């Protein structure tokens, strides 16, 4: 008994993972036993179970220093917990927005939807908390392979299949590239534990090359240019709920994991990756913005927007400081509410009318004022307009980058915000200024969507003003 206890004591600090696994098991069982008739309760019970998990997550704390288990395989800290909680909130919001879709179009497979989503969430947890490249790799794959299946969920649409194919192929390819990098890191450092890599990493050419291969793999997840090309196609083709999930959770988790690894494993030679990241950021923001301008499909449009947002997130990573970490997490936090609000509305309208074109949104304010206003808030927040939360997160992340003297980078990023503002305003323009002969009919949103949008709206408006959140993040960042 004692042996078993000792054996499994490693799991004792993995509260969130364990509870999430419990939720997974619950959903699996519920899906199994509820049968056809009970299907409608399945969703509610899944959401409820997960909501419990979310609440539970907030009760956790372990202090601001690292804790590890499995002898360094798994690490955690308050920051990790917080990031997981943030991901939890996002996932819950996605569930709210996906509810209508699950009920109407994805009726038969809603249980699977929840299961797959949560298993990718678990993968993200592991990815974030890993202390070793192996666990990291497993986590990353857990977070991406089932996602491919989710992208293909919409079986009626060819687009969905195509998006899934592109996603899985690129994912496989990029994980191959990343593994090549990891293998070289192993070969040159002699270990795959981050702590060991820290000591062995000397910024030798081969090590830098390995690092670049590794960064390419991460770049795929975060969709940094030039590893981003799958993003738009997949986002466009995937069911909107999945797109929302991909664009926020997948990206946010990967960004945070990337930050942790860079700051942990490669901390001794930061300039070896900062110089590379500098260019990647410039290109990412610029290309994301330039490509977004021409988009007419809102999902595709948001895909490119999210690419450039990823570039902004990387500003906190390149800062390589505790402040940078705080800013990054805060940015992800705000970005979550903002982007999910946008996707919430898009999915709401798409579900009920099937329209996703920007021109379809012409005159939306006349017919659906509330949706239009929330969408506008989201656009402004994404564009970094005060007093919406996006302004604060952008300001802080720029501040973090500027602290390292990266003024030129910040300046380029800021110039890019002009372009980004341009296309965000295009959406606003469509909704408020343009008129349409065939506007979207007034929509009656379902309760779940309303709740989700309300949360997002409050988040967008209020979060910037509540400084304790940021203070808390500062206190737990490292």
């Amino acid at each position, binding site marked *: 008994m004692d042996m078993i206890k000792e054996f499994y004591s490693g799991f004792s600090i993995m509260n969130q993972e364990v509870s999430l696994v419990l939720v997974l098991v619950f959903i699996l069982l519920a899906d199994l036993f509820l049968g056809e008739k009970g299907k409608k309760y399945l969703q509610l019970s899944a959401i409820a179970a997960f909501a419990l998990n979310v609440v539970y997550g907030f009760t956790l704390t372990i202090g601001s220093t690292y804790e590890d288990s499995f002898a360094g395989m798994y690490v955690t800290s308050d920051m990790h917990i917080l990031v997981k909680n943030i991901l939890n909130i996002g996932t819950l919001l996605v569930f709210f927005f996906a509810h209508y879709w699950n009920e109407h179009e994805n009726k038969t497979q809603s249980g699977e939807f929840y299961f797959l989503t949560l298993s990718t969430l678990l993968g993200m947890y592991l990815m974030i908390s890993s202390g070793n490249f192996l666990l990291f790799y497993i986590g990353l794959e857990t977070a991406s392979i089932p996602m491919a299946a989710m992208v293909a969920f919409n079986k009626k649409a060819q687009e969905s299949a195509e998006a899934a194919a592109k996603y899985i192929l690129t994912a496989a390819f990029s994980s191959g590239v990343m593994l090549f990098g990891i293998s070289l890191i192993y070969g040159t450092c002699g270990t795959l534990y981050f702590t060991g890599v820290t000591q062995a990493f000397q910024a030798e050419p081969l090590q830098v090359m390995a690092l670049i291969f590794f960064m390419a793999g991460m770049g795929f997840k975060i969709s940094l240019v030039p590893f981003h090309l799958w993003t738009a196609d997949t986002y466009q083709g995937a069911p909107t709920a999945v797109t929302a999930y991909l664009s926020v959770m997948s990206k946010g988790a990967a960004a945070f994991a990337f930050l942790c690894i860079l700051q942990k494993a490669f901390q001794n030679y930061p300039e070896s990756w900062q110089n590379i990241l500098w260019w990647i950021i410039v290109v990412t923001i610029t290309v994301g913005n330039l490509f977004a301008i021409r988009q007419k499909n809102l999902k595709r449009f948001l895909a490119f927007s999210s690419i450039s947002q990823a570039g902004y997130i990387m500003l906190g990573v390149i800062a390589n400081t505790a402040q940078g970490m705080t800013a990054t997490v805060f940015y992800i936090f705000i970005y979550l509410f903002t982007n999910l609000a946008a996707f919430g509305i898009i999915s709401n309208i798409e579900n009920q009318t099937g329209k996703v074109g920007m021109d379809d949104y012409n005159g939306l304010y006349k017919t659906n004022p509330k949706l239009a206003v929330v969408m506008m808030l989201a656009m402004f927040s994404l564009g970094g307009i005060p007093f919406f939360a996006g302004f604060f997160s952008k300001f802080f992340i720029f501040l973090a980058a500027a602290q390292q003297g990266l003024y030129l980078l910040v300046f380029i990023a800021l110039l890019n915000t002009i372009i980004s503002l341009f296309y965000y305003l295009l959406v606003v323009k469509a909704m408020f200024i343009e008129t349409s002969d065939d506007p979207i009919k007034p929509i009656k949103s379902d309760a779940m969507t309303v709740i989700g949008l309300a949360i997002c709206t409050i988040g967008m408006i209020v979060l910037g003003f509540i*400084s304790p959140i940021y203070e808390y993040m500062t206190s737990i960042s490292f």
Partner: protein
Amino acid sequence: MNILSTFVIIPLVMMAIIFCINGEKKDLIRKVMAAGALAMLGTSVYLTVDFLAQRELGDTAEFLYRSDILWYETFNIHYSVGVDGISVAMLLLSTIVVITGVFASWGLEDQTKEYFLWFLMLSLGVFGFFISIDLFTMFLFYEIALIPMYLLIGLWGTGRKKYSAMKLTLMLMGGSAFLMVGIFGIYYHSSVDGNFTFNIIEIAQNHAMPVDKQLIFFPLTFVGFGVLGAMFPFHTWSPDGHASAPTAVSMLHAGVLMKLGGYGCFRVAMYLMPEAADQLAWIFIILTGISVVYGAFSACVQNDLKYINAYSSVSHCGLVLFALLMMNQTAMTGAILQMLSHGLMTALFFALIGMIYGQTHTRDIRYLGGLMQVMPFLCVCYVIAGLASLGLPGLSGFVAEMTIFVGSFEHEDMFHRVIVIAGCTSIVITAVYILRVVGKILFGPLYKIVIEKNEKEGSVKSFYISEHDGETHRYPLRDAIWYEKIATIGLIIAIAGIGLAPLWLSNMISDGIVNMLK
């Protein structure tokens, strides 16, 4: 509670109230707006009086009514307010323009509620900017003030409104990109003991920013604000933006928002980085000097009334920055006076142009003539505005311009004095384009206007005849109605008030300048 915070709270409360009112009750909304704007005006008047009284009592602190709430401890960001004479003057200006703007847009029927909500947000940003002494909150309010412009112009504007709104917003945001980098630079290089601060006063007191850093960040900050201050060559948003904006928005934008630029240049760029300002002034003096003359010359050949006025604004606002860069008390006082003066008279101009345009549906001076005979009130007001603009003594423009010229000319350097002389030519050119408009559209014989006298009823009706789209339109013309009169008379009183008794104002302002120059 701090009196300054009311400037932020009143618009917020009003936004909340108006948000709750049904959009159909337009009259109620207007009344709420008028009441709120009046409250703001009252507050600012009270503030002015009280400020002067406190100064009278010998309170020599640089900023009065200080209040400070810690906001983001990590970055040492505070919600920190305080005013000196300059801010008080700007607040007074803003409230006057806001209330007249409310009256000028009284007749707006299309989406009144939304219009006023955005309008309030705009004024919120403006007020917040003027009371802030924390760079972060300042920047926050600055950006708050920018974005409503997009929708206000895009939705309620005229002409190429979508293009203009976008251009204006993007260019101003471009400016704020420069500005933001500048603010970061100030933040990170201005601390003595590693405690970074956004507080302007502390930064100024520390005076720890190395000159080589100043030389990098001063131009960024100055250009950042300069874009909003319509500095050549970043002014091109102004003609298009103003031409397309609805009346009250033009008023508020040219009257107040553009002042944010000048104020920011002064309060942030020059105040915090004096050495760089001193070393780099010549570049910007040349640029603003060009603005002054260039704007005036451009205005001479425009045909759209609003374009004329927009270019005139370029010229006048150029004078503001020009004088600021001269870095002496008199010139800077003049610059602030010019901000006030330009704010008021350009608001008046735009109000009048809006009122005329509302009836004739054209602003092209080639197609207007003899309006004095059909709308004497508006035209007399227009003449007064014109006279103020060309610097007639007794109206505000003269006070400001003369203070600027005398002050600027005191510069020890011959180069600067020669530029001042070049700048002086603008007063002639101003006269040219103002009189061109006055002579063409107000005076002179009737053009495209018919006056029909109905003998039976004894009534006189006049119409503007316009041909477009292959049809002949008859637009009835009338003189100003009550709310238009309130708006214009209010502004004229302010203009004449400054013009006739400028001493208290200039003392109040130079008081702030003296503190700064220390």
